[in-house]
């Protein structure tokens, strides 16, 4: 018994260390991005000038570029220069950030709304046709964007919404992405509860609104988070569907960061991930619950 316990303690220590190592692996890029965002532009270019060939020139002319690439955790001097520039000097970043919000928030809410209705339908009634439709949804959900690239473009062109926000909104809202997750979750609602309501004479709408949705709050939130992150990350859709760069979200700017003002990149990157991180810390439990419910395909 004693021996076993000792072995258990050693194992526990090994496991803790493993967990620690992996934590570093997972957190390092995030932490580095954040700490580096507090470096001055000069420090950034002297550290990373070699990596980003197009470090911005200041008015004073060329900056010093270090021969080596210096990865630094802690800035020599904490500076808010990057944030200052991003937030106050160049309003375009804020504008793009705002664009991102304008796209992602309505997409998330409406997609969840429409998807929860669809999920309810899939839960409540099963038949051959619905099973097939559900299979179709799963396939569509799993398709890489490149497959739907041309369809998306064609439809936007037909509907005459190319180069307007609708071109991003509508396919986003109609995307089957969250239907699957919500259906999985709703199927776990005990049939008894619904049947009881049914016997009480509740209509489908009331069952959906008063019973199903409240019971799925966690899943709704978790799905919303996943949708949010997915669309917050989008690069391809706006690039193809919006030619006017004023309509572009921040993700596009970040994807071109190497050709832009690299001195500010870390601050922009940090600002860009803040909403996601906040959302995550707020709703981690729901998220875990949502993902966990996804086990299995049907």
């Amino acid at each position, binding site marked *: 018994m004693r021996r076993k316990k000792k072995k258990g303690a050693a194992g526990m220590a090994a496991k803790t260390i493993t967990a620690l190592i992996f934590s570093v692996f997972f957190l390092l890029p995030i932490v580095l991005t954040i700490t580096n965002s507090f470096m001055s532009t000069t420090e950034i270019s002297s550290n990373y000038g070699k990596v980003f*060939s197009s470090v911005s020139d200041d008015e004073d002319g*060329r900056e010093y570029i270090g021969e080596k690439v210096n990865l630094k955790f802690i800035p020599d001097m904490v500076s808010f220069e990057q944030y200052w520039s991003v937030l106050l000097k160049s309003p375009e970043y804020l504008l793009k950030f705002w664009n991102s*919000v*304008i796209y992602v*928030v*309505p997409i998330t*809410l409406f997609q969840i709304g429409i998807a929860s209705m669809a999920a309810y339908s899939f839960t409540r009634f099963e038949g051959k046709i619905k099973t097939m439709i559900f299979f179709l949804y799963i396939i569509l959900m799993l398709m890489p964007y490149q497959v739907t690239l041309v369809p998306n*473009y*064609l439809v936007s*062109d037909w509907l005459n919404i190319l180069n*307007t*926000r*609708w071109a991003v909104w509508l396919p986003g809202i109609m995307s089957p992405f969250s239907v699957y997750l919500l259906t999985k979750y709703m199927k776990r609602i005990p049939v008894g509860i619904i049947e009881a309501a049914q016997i009480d004479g509740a209509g489908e709408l009331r069952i959906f609104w008063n019973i199903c949705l409240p019971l799925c*709050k966690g899943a709704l*939130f978790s799905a919303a988070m996943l949708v949010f992150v997915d669309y917050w990350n989008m690069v391809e859709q706006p690039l*193809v569907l*919006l*030619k*006017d*760069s*004023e309509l572009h979200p921040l993700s596009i700017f970040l994807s071109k960061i190497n050709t832009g003002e690299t001195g500010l990149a870390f601050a922009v990157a940090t600002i860009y991930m803040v909403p996601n991180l906040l959302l995550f810390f*707020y*709703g981690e*439990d*729901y998220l875990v619950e949502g993902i966990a419910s996804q086990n299995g395909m049907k």
Partner: protein
Amino acid sequence: MKRRFMRLAALGMTVVTACSVTGCGKGESGSKENSDDKEAKSEYGYLVDYVDVVNSENAEFYTLAMDGDNIYYSGATSNEDWTTGEVYIKQFNIASPDEQKTIVSYDFTEDSYIYIPYVQVKEDGSLLFIRREYDYSDMDVTGEMSETVPELEGLTGEETITEEYLELLGIDLEEFGLVFDDVKELTVGEVVDMYDALTSDGDSGEEYYYDDNGKTYLVTVDAEGKETSSKDVSEAMKDCYPYSYMLGKDGKIYMQTEVIIGADMDTWEMCMFSLDTESGEVEQYTVGTSEVLGMTATGDGQIVVAKYDDEGEVCIDTWDMEKNKLSGKNEDKLDVMWMESMYAGEGDTFFYSVDNTLYTYDLSEQKNTKLFKLVDWNITADNVSWIGGTEENLIVLTEMYGSSNWAVTLNLMTRVKAADIPEKTEITLGCLYAADTITNAVVEFNKKSQNYKVVIKEYLTDDVEYDAGIAEFNNDILSGNGPDLIDLSSLDISSYAGKGLFEDLYTYIENDAEFSKKNLNESVLKLFESDGKLMAMPSTFSVQMLVSDKSLYGDSALTLDKFAEIVKANPDKEIVDLTGRESMLANLYVCNSDYFVNMADKTCNFTDGTFEKLLNICKDLPSDEELWEQMDGEYEESEPEKVSKGTLLFYNLSLYSPEEYQIAGLLFKNGYNMSGYPSVEGGEVTANVYSDLMAISSNSKYKEDCWEIVKTIFESADDMFNIPVDNDALDKMLEEACTPNMEVDDNGNEVEMPSVYGWGDNFELEIYAMTEAEAEAMKTLVNSVTTLVSSTYNEDVYNIIMEESEAFFEGDATASEVCEIIQSRVNIFINEDN
């Protein structure tokens, strides 16, 4: 947990409401504006009458005033060399523009010049105008001062300046706020040059205006032209050379002008002058900001100032006539890039134009309205020089500077219901930017055509990024909504080849009885062939050559090996002007792109050592950045100057006129070699096409009509700075170049006058008529082009190469490693298109 969720949900809802309000609002208002736009377009149109006010080399136009239907304008006509002529004010009614009446006229002679910059119609129908006169009879014309130096006995111009010399030369340094110490180290010649530079503003002709000798009169005449009063305001207007004249609501004439301040003669200040027409008094005020784009008065006489605000955007301010400064009250931002030609409209409004698009701005409502593009109603213009009337009856005065004449046209535009405009079938012409040749040809076609209207669609406008514009262009072509006619210049034509997107223009040429007779430059057309079909046709081109001394590589061809040798043997010399290692690599690659990337065979070839050669040639050159830094702020010797001193090996010749060809011979007196950028085989002749490379879409419904337009564009090509593809036109061009410019000299002999080409301050070449042999050689050269600089290389491949070679230049990789990587990446690109 539950409460937290509710809070979050509430938060989410608020954000969403806010977003959807602003977001949707924006989306909707955006689309609404569009529909408004369309409605306005579909509801109204303009019928235009054109009245030529000036259409000759020997006429000038100054200003215009309007009184109801009566137009008064001032201008001048002269004899051929502008020595004598008359300045006048003429009047006509817009209903009968041909019946013009001269109100007043003044003769001028060789020694004088008269100018009427401002005309105003008073309420009683009499005219008030400003007349300025300059008398040169008792002065040396400053432009000829330099010739006084040799005349001074015993002076060569090389002597160090002394105060006595200054006196002899009649140069008064104090005039420019200088003292003798400032110039004591200069030579006589340099001082004279400096004096010339200071007394002229570089633009010959205008320098006369800045003379103290000028007289200015404020004149009133009655409707018949009888002078009722004339006031001499010369003294008060001495420093005032206005950009614009405005009639203020207080009856004063306001003038915007720049005044020299400070001793260094370099500092200018924006000023406002006001001229009281009753008393003749002039007041001068400082505007207080230099970022003024223009000024005008509204119809009501409010003075409006367009300027850049702190953020560099165009905004509107007004002039406070009581405090005599900018009011700073009404800083409304306009969504335009800049502003040209501002003129009074009705009441509180004024008109302005930006890039040949007309706008009107209502001051009281702060409303900016875009009216239309001039070209939409078949008006072409290099410059809009007056706008007036109302939106219903708009009068737009436009200027065109042709190669041989200057045309000022009054466009009388009447707004009508769209239904009253004869309907025409639209043909779209797609291009990145509409070159003037294209716009002009399109307008010409539209004016003539009964059934068709060509609409130009520009894919790159101010608010569209380059990539996005190209993407839209490509998408349009592929979705079948593409333009009927396409200008492919500055596009990667190889990526469109072999896709059946464009008509074979050879068949059109063959079937066209007239056009097939033309003697076209086949070597150029060959560059745009794909599978024996002519995808696109340019009307002009230029040839890009490297010229060097004959001794540099003798009779051998300029191959890469030879070039490498030359670069190696001349480490202390500049190879090609302002070409650092990156540019050199880019040039070498672009000119050899067919060797490295063969789109026909779907192969690429970066690893056979040739590209390594390229890299090694470039390696020891200074980087582009170093080069630019070096020349930053320093005086840079001109290219021909460096060639003549022997510090530069290759002269970069852009052959777009016979004169350029002659320059090569003049620079290298001991004989020269002319070759395109070095290639594997050597002996390339490289062509460049800048504009109007026309293709007809296979999808177009109006192919035959498109061909007509292509022909119009081809025939109206501007060959001023380009070589025509039509060899007959080239022959004409060469014939002109071979005709000597004869003049009678002081001794009464007819002698040939050379045209003088100058670079910077020190280097000049005199070019006489071309010899027949030279003309023949040039014709042979331009008819034997082998490669195309622009558009043949693919942007993606180019970017890969430039990105990877950086590692080699920085010493992070060996040449062969870099070649391997480039091969790997470009290979993918090529295979994709298999």
